[in-house]
């Protein structure tokens, strides 16, 4: 899928979560996307496409919505082992005008 398709999927999942009632009024939850999907969202992908979307972190309440889509997976535990210490401080939010999801990817130049 290309960037537009990925964004469309994320917004659809966001809408499903928002209208499902699993979150309280005004509550937002964050997810961290890594891999090729993250590069795509950051406009750093040379291929311009990804086969699937690796979700590193997501709250349990919203995981079923993400994993309902066959293109989303959370099997990247080995990847997390390679991330630097306190990588959570080195992520940036991708603004997709969502209702409930805050989508994060790794920030460029995390070594600075």
């Amino acid at each position, binding site marked *: 899928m290309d960037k537009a398709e990925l964004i469309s999927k994320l917004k*659809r999942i966001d*809408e*499903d979560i928002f*209208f*499902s*009632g699993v979150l309280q009024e005004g509550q937002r939850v964050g997810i961290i996307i890594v891999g090729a999907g993250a590069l795509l969202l950051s406009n750093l992908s040379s291929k311009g496409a990804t086969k699937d979307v690796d979700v590193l972190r997501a709250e349990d309440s919203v995981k079923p*919505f993400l994993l*309902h*889509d*066959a293109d989303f997976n959370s099997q990247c535990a080995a990847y997390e082992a390679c991330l630097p210490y306190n990588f959570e401080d080195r992520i940036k939010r991708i603004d997709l005008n969502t209702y409930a999801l805050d989508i994060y990817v790794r920030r460029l130049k995390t070594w600075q």
Partner: protein
Amino acid sequence: MATIMLTFRGFLLKYCQELAGAQTSSLKKLFAIAKQGRPRVFEPLLLLALCDHREGYLMKQAVGSSVFETYRSMTASFHQSGLALERFLDTLPERSRYKRPLIAWRAENARKQTNRQTLQRVADSLAMLLEQKGISRAEACRITGLNKGNFYAFLKGDASKLSRSTAMRAYGTLRSLPSSPPSQQVDRAATS
């Protein structure tokens, strides 16, 4: 428009066609495409052949290819199990490439069901929003550019009257409007 749930067989054909990048139902052509550089077609293609009881024909196409032994082994396991195909696939390990089409099919059906549920909830939320904002349905149609008949029917529960993207656009537009002051809401209630 009613949401059509595909049978597993119907899904497999569509899946093979998408992976192959070709709108053909010919096992021979699909196998040839898989061999020429689209190996992801191999597994769902065998499943499609099993659904149609044409695995023998597909095995002939596979003679001499890299998948012949895997095809033979999978076909033998399936027949020995005595199970229906979906049940047999359920017994395979999660990471099995032969199981992925089943997972994808179930995910697609679940997505369609979720989509229907979400649309119903959007309708409920829109009705609440109109009340909170003190906007009549007619005014909402004027603001959003929606057809009155379709919008009224959608609010009453006919989720087929608005596409998801249209419903979400309307929701976003109306949600961003300021709420009317309580006095105006009382006036509207009095005159309605």
